[in-house]
């Protein structure tokens, strides 16, 4: 994992471990409320859907467009989610025979809020990154959007359909790519699986050939399509999975860790493919990934989920600005200077002989850097944004620490 992170880091900032840049706790507590005010500013207000029209359907079973409180919206968003909730019942058992016997008589149940009143809208053609630590609820949310999981509560609409009904028109319009979860037949060449998909999705022959030609070119499928799937390498298999999942040219793509376990070149290739697909078909894309580079390369908008809740929704650049209100000034000194003297300019985050990193407030960066150049024996200076991994890491850490504050902010924004 770490090895891959390092291998990937052509940009030195990406190679750094997540926890290196830790902003102090008080700084974050002031950051969070500001984040949510930002969120209200960028995200259009969620339409007010009352209990009466939430389940509104005409007698023919067709979905009636929702009444919006702001009716001047031209086209409905590709994805609408309001107060989406998924609660699991989990049975717990103590380890060992004793625990087994105890659970035999009475099983201990706990409720887990995997997704907890999540709301957002995504316009057609937008690419959005879902970020969050393991178990945050990203995948659960995607599975509900794709119709695999039935929500416990809340409202979901994807290109005008309720996903859990799994209507044919809906299924022909979406795809969900889940890591290495195979839809390919293991003992047969991938081409056979493609033929099955062609038949099931009722893709006309000429369209099928055109799509295959295109995909083969971009993903370099030549030569691997006729090999047994189980003989393919992980990267080759992932390319085939992706091609199979997009054969029917869906307009809404849910990509859950599409690059997991792939080498750097393959990650880049898949990223380019997704970007190209988005351009070609104006497809709406939601992407989750552990590799920040996937998200920074593809998505302008980021939704950060932690413990089933949205803690940030907005521009990637704004996320960096808001969550990490400082920049790092890297100094190479020509002669020794005391730590105390460096600390006058900002927080000294690391010091090794003549090399020092000073964290300074974002708005004062140029002023302080100029002062340092003037007042200190500086041989070289660089100014850097903190790595996005670090930003996200501190955001999660902060969200956990100040959970009550975040919750009250959520309520506030919902009632407004």
């Amino acid at each position, binding site marked *: 994992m770490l090895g891959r992170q390092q291998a990937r880091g052509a940009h030195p900032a990406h190679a750094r471990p997540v926890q290196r840049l830790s902003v102090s706790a008080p700084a974050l507590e002031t950051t969070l409320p500001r984040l949510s005010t930002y969120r209200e500013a960028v995200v259009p207000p969620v339409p007010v859907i009352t209990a009466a029209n939430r389940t509104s359907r005409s007698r023919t079973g067709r979905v009636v467009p929702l009444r919006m409180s702001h009716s001047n919206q031209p086209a409905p968003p590709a994805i609408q989610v309001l107060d989406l909730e998924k609660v699991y019942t989990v049975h717990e058992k103590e380890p060992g025979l004793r625990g087994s016997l105890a659970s035999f008589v009475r099983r201990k149940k706990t409720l887990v809020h995997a997704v907890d009143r999540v709301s957002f809208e995504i316009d057609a053609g937008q690419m959005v990154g879902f970020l969050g630590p393991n178990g945050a609820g990203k995948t659960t949310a995607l599975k509900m959007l794709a119709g695999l*999981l*039935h929500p416990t509560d809340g409202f979901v609409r994807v290109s005008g359909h309720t996903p859990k009904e799994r209507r044919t028109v809906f*299924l022909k319009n979406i*795809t969900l790519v889940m890591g290495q*979860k195979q839809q390919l037949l293991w003992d047969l060449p991938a081409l*056979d699986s493609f*033929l099955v998909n*062609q*038949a099931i999705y009722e893709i006309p022959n000429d369209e099928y050939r055109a799509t295959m030609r295109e995909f083969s070119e971009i993903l370099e499928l030549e030569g691997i399509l006729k090999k047994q799937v189980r003989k393919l390498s992980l990267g080759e298999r992932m390319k085939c999975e992706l091609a199979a999942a997009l054969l029917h040219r869906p307009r809404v793509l849910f990509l859950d860790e599409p690059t997991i376990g792939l080498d750097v070149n393959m990650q880049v290739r898949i990223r380019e493919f997704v970007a190209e697909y988005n351009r070609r078909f104006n497809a709406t894309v939601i992407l989750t990934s552990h590799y920040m580079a996937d998200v920074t390369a593809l998505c302008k908008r980021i939704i950060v989920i932690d413990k089933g809740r949205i803690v940030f929704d907005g521009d990637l650049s704004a996320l960096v600005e808001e969550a990490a209100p400082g920049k790092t000034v890297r100094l190479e000194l020509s002669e020794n200077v005391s730590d105390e003297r460096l600390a006058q300019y900002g927080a000294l985050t690391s010091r090794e002989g003549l090399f020092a990193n000073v964290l300074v407030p974002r708005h004062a960066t140029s002023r302080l850097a100029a002062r340092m150049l003037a007042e200190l024996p500086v041989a070289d200076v660089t100014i850097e944004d903190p790595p996005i991994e670090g930003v996200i890491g501190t955001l999660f850490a902060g969200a956990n620490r100040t959970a009550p504050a975040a919750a009250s902010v959520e309520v506030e924004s919902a009632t407004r």
Partner: protein
Amino acid sequence: MRARLNKAWVLFSVWFAHMSAYRAEIIIWMLSGAIPLIMMAVWIGKARAAGGETGGFNEQQFAAYFLAAWITQQLIVAWVAWELDYQIRQGHLSPKLLRPMDPMWEHFAGHYSERLVRLPFMLLIIAAGLFIVPGTRLTPDIGHVMLYAVSVSLAFCTRFLIAYCIGILAFWFDQATAIDDFYFVAAAFLTGAFAPLEFYPPALRGFIEWTPFPYLVYYPVRVLTGAAQGPEIVRVLGVQVLWAAAFYVLRLALWRRGLARYGAVGA
């Protein structure tokens, strides 16, 4: 309609290719279902000890009955409970659910095409059986073979749907396959694979007649061997259609309820 036929054809041919890759396993698997062949030896021994006939069956009739029972059992084998249970609990059902087709049809195509892979080996066993017990007449005429084809297809559909219903229970229970194991025990006694139903106590037989089990093996065997004639065949086929329809409806109801509980775990 054309799209449907195309779907059926593609699924069938792809799954045939898939099953062909498992031909060695399938033969071994076929051998494990040899109970009727063992019972054939037992009952023929019994008939010989009783002076050539017992309960209205002579050696050749036992041979025909158990050979037909074995063929029928081979043709109605269904492992979908096991497969579905695995897919549900491991989350492998998810990619299938994303496609605009009930995943049942893919399982169906898999089972159906597998029969073709079995066929050559089955013919071999039948020939051996007929050679070992000379004078055995498996079927009186081609008409009965064709009626048997209908009957055994219905039996397969019923068995397949029973297994499917059991597999769906994995949405609620951790080990749905345990119930399928129970089915195997029940089926061995109730379908007529151990003995023709004529040898059962009348009360027990009266009960069995109200279950789908005799319509899976016993009655199709009677159709093939010619023990059943005109009106009985019509009745058998009618009851078979009803059982298949009943389990089709049950399957659909369970499926809809089960999907709401699907956890889509993994990945």
